[in-house]
């Protein structure tokens, strides 16, 4: 009941804001004695191709530390179309293929589609959308999965500051893998399915014309149908700080610092009775150089460290890669 009251309050709030904006607009029309004419909205279409090559010191993300070279191809398509003065439709499609030279089991193709509608109100922007991803392993069919989620967000641009609050709900469907049964060695006849809910708050700041900072805090809950120890059920709390700095007219420095705390609901450490808890740290730095308006190159380094009370899940990973990007 309380949730219904809360929902109707938010809905009435937006309706009243929208109505207020409409009344003001009508007043302006009378004053000018000039009818508002429709405006032809042009879609904004962008394509991008990127090629990467690099080395990963720990492709299996385990304490075995198997290193391998990789090559990656990325194609991105962005389509933005204004449907009316205050409503916009967005479509993003990405195709990503990553090939590992020796650990070929994890060579994969990723298709990602995002659809969204964004409406501008006087107080903020409201958006809803759907995100779909399909991962295919050509040499390891057991790993294929489909991930999809719906999301809703409130976004506000305050000039120097921008902030965003987003809620997500979805699922990760392992289409070629059956879920764990009562032990780690036995499987059910049904596919593994993880249900997810998440919420995040993000704030971005234009510190000066060259420096942009953003901070995001996120909560995520994963609820799997695996029976053994509710093996994949956890709560995760993630904080991330990102910065973009325009060092020269053509060179940008990029950095990301992320920390995630993951607490498993009932999964215990191997052969122990206490629950598994992970602290995951990630640092990424990179430089991007614009060769011209359509072409750029990049150099990227990522350090990841998972500190866990489960020794089998502790790992350190270093990835260095260089990329070439073309926009059209």
């Amino acid at each position: 009941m309380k949730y219904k009251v809360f929902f109707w309050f938010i809905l009435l709030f937006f309706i009243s804001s929208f109505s207020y904006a409409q009344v003001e607009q009508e007043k302006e029309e009378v004053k000018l004695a000039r009818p508002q004419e429709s405006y032809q909205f042009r879609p904004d279409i962008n394509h991008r191709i990127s090629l990467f090559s690099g080395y990963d010191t720990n492709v299996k993300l385990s304490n075995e530390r198997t290193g391998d070279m990789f090559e990656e191809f990325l194609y991105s398509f962005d389509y933005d179309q204004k449907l009316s003065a205050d409503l916009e439709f967005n479509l993003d499609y990405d195709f990503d293929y990553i090939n590992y030279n020796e650990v070929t089991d994890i060579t994969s193709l990723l298709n990602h589609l995002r659809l969204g509608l964004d409406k501008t109100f006087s107080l903020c922007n409201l958006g809803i959308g759907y995100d779909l991803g399909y991962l295919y392993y050509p040499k390891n069919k057991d790993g294929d999965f489909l991930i999809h989620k719906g999301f809703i967000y409130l976004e506000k641009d305050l000039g120097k500051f921008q902030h965003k609050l987003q809620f997500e709900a979805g699922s990760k469907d392992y289409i070629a893998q059956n879920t764990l049964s009562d032990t780690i060695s036995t499987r059910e006849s049904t596919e593994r399915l993880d249900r997810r809910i998440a919420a995040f708050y993000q704030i971005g700041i234009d510190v000066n014309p060259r420096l942009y900072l953003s901070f995001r805090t996120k909560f995520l809950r994963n609820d799997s149908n695996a029976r053994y120890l509710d093996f994949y059920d956890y709560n995760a709390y993630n904080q991330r700080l990102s910065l973009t700095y325009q060092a020269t007219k053509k060179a940008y420095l990029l950095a990301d610092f992320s920390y995630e705390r993951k607490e498993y609901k009932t999964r215990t450490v191997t052969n122990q009775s206490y629950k598994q808890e992970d602290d995951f740290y990630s640092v990424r730095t990179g430089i991007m150089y614009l060769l011209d308006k359509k072409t750029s190159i990049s150099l990227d380094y990522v350090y990841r460290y998972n500190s866990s009370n489960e020794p089998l899940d502790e790992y350190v990973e270093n990835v260095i890669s260089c990329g070439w990007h073309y926009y059209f």
Partner: protein
Amino acid sequence: MKKIFWFLFIFCFLFTGLGFAQTAKIIKLEGSVQIKKTETDNWQIATIGTYLKKEAEIKTKADSSCTLAFDKQLDNLITIEQNSHLKLEQVKPAELFLPEGRVFSIIDNLADIGEFKIKTPVAVSGVRGTGDSVESTEEGTTVKCFAGEIYVESLLKPQDPILGSGSGIKVSPTGQLGNIFGLSEDDWRMWNKFLAGINSMRGGPTPRPNGSPGLDRMKGERRDSIREDFFQQRRKDEEGRESSGSNGGSPNSIAR
């Protein structure tokens, strides 16, 4: 308690900075430019990156100019030329008052700002997704349309013609609308110079070497699934060793 927290959080989110939502940003300066942020403020030297709200004023001296952006994508821009004085009466919808001087504007996304008008002491010109210049002097107002369509409203006489691309009109100090005239080569040269400056500011690709945020999350899911698969196998092996009579407990496990 949690529900109250979320309710207050969303309430604050919606109302935060209500008065700050509508701003124009200074993105380029040349020469000597001064700004007044409110009616009661003193004149101060303008700096790039400053956000201006309604009632802000800008003054440019000789050989000086100031470019304002009304949106992040740089779709809607104006350049205030030398020896000009401009007041931002409203930012969104944009209503500017130009008592003296000249302004070039390019409005590629009218929907984003709702409406765009420049008023002078004798006329109002409004754009319909276009590029134009408006000049105000003691001898009246001159409006020139370089792209799209604009309307010109005389404040003193009830006439409001529409100018197409390549034409201009002069409004006398008494509000009398002159004949529509064609633009000269000099006019086009000044417009092209303004456009070149705008295009150089609009620049090239934004730095996002690893794709959209949505794609980044998908790649994170890929890494997670790889890690889980290999972990599950190792755990299965470890539990198998334990159940077949190894010493209890992993020697390196840590209790937290």
